[in-house]
């Protein structure tokens, strides 16, 4: 089982990100489960969502305590919420930022992890550019496909088309693709 925890703030599409990730896995004939942690939902409040992916039915219903991967949609959470709780040394981290891990003050923390599994993507900028709104979730999924290989970009595109339509879908796909390419580099 592969467990992904997504952190962000209300209004950034964190829950939708988890749902899309689960749809992407479904499109690759895998089992997946996505759900939010349910706090008071208001714009700007810290939000967590979870996604589990497996090749057999997922029965577990607890929050993700030991994530295999973290997607952090808002770097202002880094020193406010313990977003890294439970992450092991082989974990993947994808942060939405145009700064580096060192610049974010995570240099020492990152040195205990596998460097090829850590990535930053300026997803909000990509979203603004391709969609016209600062919602980084779809772009980050593209980046996540690249850094983890757990889902393919094609599946991410499929998930985006499931959730959105028309121009918004197209824009999100472009942002996700750009993030995928940037994360691969």
């Amino acid at each position, binding site marked *: 089982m592969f467990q992904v925890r997504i952190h962000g703030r209300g209004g950034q599409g964190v829950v939708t990100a988890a749902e899309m990730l*689960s749809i992407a896995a479904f499109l690759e004939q895998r089992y997946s489960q996505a759900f939010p942690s349910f706090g008071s939902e208001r714009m700007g409040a810290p939000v967590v969502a979870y996604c589990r992916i497996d090749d057999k039915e997922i029965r*577990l*219903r607890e929050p993700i305590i030991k994530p295999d991967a973290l997607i952090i949609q808002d770097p202002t959470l880094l020193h406010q919420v313990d977003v890294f709780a439970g992450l092991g040394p082989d974990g993947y981290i994808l942060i939405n930022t145009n700064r580096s891990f060192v610049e974010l003050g995570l240099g020492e923390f990152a040195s205990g992890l596998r460097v090829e599994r850590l990535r930053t993507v300026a997803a909000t900028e990509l979203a603004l550019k391709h969609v016209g709104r600062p919602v980084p979730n779809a772009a980050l999924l593209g980046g996540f496909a690249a850094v983890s290989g757990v889902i393919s970009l094609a599946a991410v595109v499929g998930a985006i088309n499931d959730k959105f339509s028309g121009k918004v879908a197209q824009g999100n796909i472009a942002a996700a693709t750009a993030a995928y390419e940037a994360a691969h580099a």
Partner: protein
Amino acid sequence: MLKQTEGSQAVAEAVGLCRPEVICAYPISPQTHIVEGLGKMVKSGELQRCEFINVESEFAAMSVSIGASAAGARSYTATASQGLLFMAEAVYNASGLGLPIVMTVANRAIGAPINIWNDHSDSLSMRDSGWIQLFAETNQEALDLHILAFRLAEELSLPAMVCMDGFILTHAYERVDMPTQAQVDAYLPAYEPRQVLDPGQPISIGAMVGPEAFMEVRYLAHAKQLQALELIPILATEFQGVFGRNSGGLVHPYRTADAETIVVAMGSVLGTIKDVIDEMRDDGVRIGALGICSFRPSPLAAIRDVLKSAKRVVVLEKSLAVGLGGILSTDVRMALSGLQLHGYTVVAGLGGRSILKSSLHELLRKAGDDALQPISFLDLNWDVVNRVLERERCSRRSGPIAENILRDIGVVAASIA
């Protein structure tokens, strides 16, 4: 057809396939996505020959359902928690009148203190109302149970409640197999009422019944539920034949055949429990689980049959009989009466507190050593509890308990100073 979708949406689609005629809805977390989904289906024309009514309260929701059902329409509504209590009078009325209304209860705790998260206290507060109560373990079972519920309710002329864990199931995206309209039509025929308001054949429904006949009327309600005990397995077998799935039924045993310890539970927590069972089995522990699907009618014989050869039974329930202990465990105890085994009640997950695999491992290890108290509360913070008790001992004007606790555990929003 396989889909990856939100639990609420899956339920809405399944209800739609059941050809409902009147849907009324009052919004309450965490049921809102279900009724929103159905509202959209009706308004867009996707769901035809269906009236969707936005009512002004849950009391109105059940009341509109009563009127619609009495006039011969297949009626549906959904609620949770406070809403279920607000319609309590009408809930009893519906079953007393024998109207086969189907209602989803998106299980949520009851206040005070107000809490929007999952536990079973809402449905269980209506356990004596005469409604059939079915608990879903997964979103697949949740959608399947609605189809079963309409069939069961209409055959018996008794209303049925499908209970699914709020947020944990309603708001979870997972894979489901959505039936086709043809499959549902094959399983669920058109509603043929036993009684109906019709100018062609006028009848009076809802007369007062005095001491001379009330006991007989109530016994008949009980007898109908006992009939349901017979019918539920039959309908589940038929369901398996049409849809190819083992949904519904009275109970779901899991690795209980040679189990020394059996965990009894309802709803989504069974998924986590099954993972724990498998891991403990890998360590050579003879442990199994019994999922209760039909809470009402209470499948006493079926429960006894599974549990009778175990050494110990641990009932893990998301409910609390304040002043007594467990609700589910009291039912289970009745099923086991006369048998010699250790019985443990574990109250867990109240108000949405997560039930962790690690906690279950520790709990069940202790159970295996027979080191559990007869009644225990999983992952209870005794420090917080004791602080409140101490505060109350010291001062009369000790303040509201909930607010004090929130301040103690450091929730930022709760502090004023």
